[in-house]
């Protein structure tokens, strides 16, 4: 934290303390809005606020400049209070061009602030944004409910860099730093993290480094000196649980969770993947961790990725692959083989909007039923879901643990919002991570007529898991395969009774995972009028909704289900303590079907399929409407 700055601020009358704020940076996809948002996030983490982010960008790398579909946004909600969602309404919109204003104006709260780069409001851009010759800045009706700050962002950036002898393109790329500097000042954020980052990032390009730092500072100073901004805001540090924190994105947390599982289990991590949005970042992270013995394999296609994972698991490694929606579809047959061969592995699905190519960069939870049932034959496997960016770490660790303990492929569900979103993360002590014992078999496990033999499908009585025997040990030679296995011997069997027996056994094995699921935690009222059941990335929005509903006098509880298959054993008894039930999901109603099937209760779905996460208010409104019926 910038000590001098905070001292000045304390003495100033124009500083207003607030508990939370939501800022949205929006501009062309080439304007560097994601970068601006990430840097503002780091500064906010430095200021020790709680936070949640929502990067929202087009699937095209450089969508046509100035168009509404080319708008890239980064929304950040931060506060001294608990922050669980990226914010229902925006308090400050930074609009770098007319299209950014057009797309995002409706998200700004009445009375909220809009910083507008007026230099971009030229006839050509106005036309591209669909303002058809009418300048919104001149439209008093349109903006009358907002505090509008017209800033000559482009011109001032050009002015700041006039001595640098850069071409127009380079100068233009620096203007996001002006916006960042100004916004940092406006919310009393420290400027140091961004300065450090720029120094590091452009260490080999001193001129560019100097220019960016110069513009960043100009933006910050502009806030101080201009009289436009009569109020500066201050957000006190959040009261989080004691410990050491860092800001973390979901995809980073997934990577760290997998490395942690590998380290604690002493299993080599073999990670195999084919590039796909938004799962690719996991490959990018893991490929950097080679000194942890991690081998990453960029496969020729999605099917090869699951195949290599199976091969590595057969060899005794911790096999992991990750993909997104359409990739999971391609992996279906391979996952079936993993179920039949009963080899441990984790398949991470970073869900995105579907069907088909759908909305590659937008979030959705519509692969739950695919994960549960999207394979031929009776092919159950454990399915677990991460609920916040930081929880991705623990979910990845647990997925590996379940896979190895129960000798089964596990599907771990995340989504685009979790993977790209960030939050402050209490760094766990490695000693506190659950023990991870790997029961490799090292000698024959059975006797037939006095002879020692190895039966690859002999069962552990507690878990029903079969033994894991690594190639390389004499006396344990065995063959696996996709054909039905005879109980215990693992020989090919077409016996009708054996097939039914093995089908039931594989299902029972997955059910046994439930014995290891800890009791659910209820948030809010432990009995009452309404329970909201969530899974995955909806947790934050639901918790915020529960707070508001309880403040309104509705006795409301919520449970977040991490284990979807099998379900937590105490879920049924918890549901029985409430009058009504709602399941909010970013799909057409998938968990709700599973729960209705399991508990035969009139559970209400609440669905949103817009590629965007829930706002807490949407859940509050639906809950009130339901309870008033």
């Amino acid at each position, binding site marked *: 934290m910038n000590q001098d700055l905070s001292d000045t601020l304390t003495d100033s009358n124009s500083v207003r303390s607030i508990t939370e704020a939501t800022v949205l940076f929006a501009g062309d996809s080439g304007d560097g809005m994601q970068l601006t948002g990430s840097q503002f996030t780091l500064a906010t983490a430095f200021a020790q606020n709680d936070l949640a982010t929502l990067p929202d960008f087009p699937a095209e790398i450089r969508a046509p400049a100035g168009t509404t579909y080319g708008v890239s946004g980064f929304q950040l909600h931060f506060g001294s209070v608990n922050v669980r969602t990226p914010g229902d309404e925006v308090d400050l919109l930074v609009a770098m061009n007319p299209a950014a204003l057009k797309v995002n104006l409706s998200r700004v709260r009445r009375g909220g602030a809009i910083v507008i780069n007026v230099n971009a409001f030229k006839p050509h851009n106005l036309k591209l944004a669909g303002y058809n010759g009418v300048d919104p800045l001149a439209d008093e009706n349109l903006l009358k409910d907002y505090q509008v700050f017209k800033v000559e962002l482009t011109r001032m950036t050009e002015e700041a860099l006039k001595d640098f002898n850069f071409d127009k393109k380079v100068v233009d790329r620096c203007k996001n730093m002006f916006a960042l500097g100004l916004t940092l000042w406006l919310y009393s954020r420290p400027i140091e993290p961004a300065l450090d980052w720029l120094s590091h990032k452009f260490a080999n390009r001193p001129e560019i480094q100097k220019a960016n730092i110069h513009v960043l500072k100009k933006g910050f100073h502009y806030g101080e000196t201009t009289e436009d901004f009569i109020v500066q805001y201050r957000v006190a540090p959040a009261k989080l649980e004691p410990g050491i924190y860092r800001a973390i994105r979901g995809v980073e947390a997934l990577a760290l969770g997998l490395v942690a599982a590998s380290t604690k289990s002493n299993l080599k991590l073999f990670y195999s993947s084919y590039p796909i949005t938004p799962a690719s970042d996991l490959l990018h992270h893991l490929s950097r961790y080679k000194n942890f013995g991690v081998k990453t394999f960029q496969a020729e296609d999605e099917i090869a990725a699951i195949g290599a994972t199976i091969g590595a698991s057969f060899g005794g490694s911790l096999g992991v692959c990750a993909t997104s929606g359409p990739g999971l579809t391609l992996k279906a047959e391979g996952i079936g*083989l993993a179920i039949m061969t009963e080899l441990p592995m984790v398949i991470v699905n970073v869900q995105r909007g579907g069907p088909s190519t759908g909305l590659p960069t937008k979030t959705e939870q519509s692969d739950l039923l695919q994960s549960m049932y999207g394979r031929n034959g009776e092919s159950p496997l454990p399915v677990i879901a991460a609920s916040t960016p930081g929880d991705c770490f623990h979910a990845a660790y647990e997925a590996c643990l379940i896979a190895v303990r129960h000798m089964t492929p596990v599907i771990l569900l995340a989504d685009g919002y979790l993977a790209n979103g960030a939050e402050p993360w209490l760094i766990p002590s490695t000693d506190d991570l659950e023990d991870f014992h790997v029961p490799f078999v090292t000698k024959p496990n059975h006797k037939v007529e006095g002879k020692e033999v190895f039966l690859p499908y002999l069962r552990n009585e507690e878990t029903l898991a079969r033994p894991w025997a690594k*190639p390389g040990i004499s*006396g344990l*030679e065995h*063959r696996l*395969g996709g*054909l039905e296995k005879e109980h215990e*011997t693992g020989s090919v069997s077409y016996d009708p009774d054996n097939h039914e027996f093995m089908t039931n056994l594989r299902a029972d094995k997955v059910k046994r995972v439930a014995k290891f699921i800890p009791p659910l935690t209820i948030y809010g009222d432990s009995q009452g009028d309404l329970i909201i059941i969530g899974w995955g990335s909806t947790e934050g929005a639901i918790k915020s909704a529960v707070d508001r509903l309880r403040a309104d006098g509705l006795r409301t509880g919520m449970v977040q289900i991490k284990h979807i298959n099998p379900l937590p054993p105490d879920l049924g008894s918890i549901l029985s303590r409430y009058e009504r039930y709602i399941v909010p999901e970013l799909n057409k109603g998938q968990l709700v079907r599973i729960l209705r099937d399991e508990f035969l209760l009139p559970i209400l779905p609440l669905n949103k399929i817009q590629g965007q996460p829930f706002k807490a208010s949407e859940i509050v409104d639906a809950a009130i409407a339901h309870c008033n019926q």
Partner: protein
Amino acid sequence: MPTLPPINKPTRPPSRRPPTSSATKPKVDRKAYSSDQDVRWCPGCGDYAILATVQRLMPQLDVKRENVVFISGIGCSSRFPYYMETYGMHSIHGRAPTIATGLKASRPELDVWMVTGDGDALSIGGNHLIHILRRNVNLQILLFNNQIYGLTKGQFSPTSEIGKVTKSSPFGSVSPPFNPISVSLGASSSFSARTLDRDTKHLTQILRRAHEHQGTSFVEIYQNCNIYNDGAFFDFTEKATKSDRTIFLEHGKPMLFANQTKGIRLDGFMPVVFDLEKGNLSVSDALVYDETTLELAEIVSRMSQQPTMPRPFGVFYSEQRPTYEQLLQQQVEEVTKKRGSGDLGKLLHAADTWTIS
């Protein structure tokens, strides 16, 4: 545990032999590599000869049985691993290269063999085949080519000749075939060879060389399907025609065939047949085969599509280059040396952190 149905098992455990100590080198023969499973190929199938040859060869190779793994896809040939008393996996259609790659990349010390067929490797698994060849994973690929889909009961395959009448092409196939050797060379194979089920001596010799080669060894084995495509290769295997219709490539030796009465020479880029007994040309005019020259391998592999030319067998191409798993392992070691062994606690804290007390 659910109630067990009335099965009087295990009667045929997959591994009957007690573990052998590696200190005393056990005596191994064909039986040591034969599993207890009944072999279920059709009587008279070419697969039997290949299985027997492999089972006889394995004990002669300098490898421990417990380090051997056979991986296959789907099809008649892919039942192979069940009959080998080694580690193995009968996987899914076309995907054996992916599983073998994951296994070998993570366990470089294992001796991995892949068994596949023309449909498995060149149709449904075509993509994986070209990529395993390009990467040069150190393992042996045995492609049993019978030019037909056997297990699905007789449809034309990607190596069936054009015009072939099958159940799925009653008026003749209109799809031109792949030449597997040319495909492998095009995919940057580091070792490409062709042999036959009915010439066990040559088969043994080629498999031995394939095993010696460091990298992906691609071996196409002409295999007779006596049910759906009987006699597809009789021109090359039967006494009456074999001599005139085949030529066996040997590195550094002139390309001669038909009991040394005919030779192959190059006319520009075109291989042509000449008679040693008539005319003015002699052995010294024959093309001396060089298995280290890719261009030559490509020209000679294309002779397979010319009905007037003898069919080449043997090692078409062999090249030494680093294997995929070596490079992968090397990178892990180099990065570890540079950065030191990973420390999980440090990694979790490797960001801007702050403390709340």
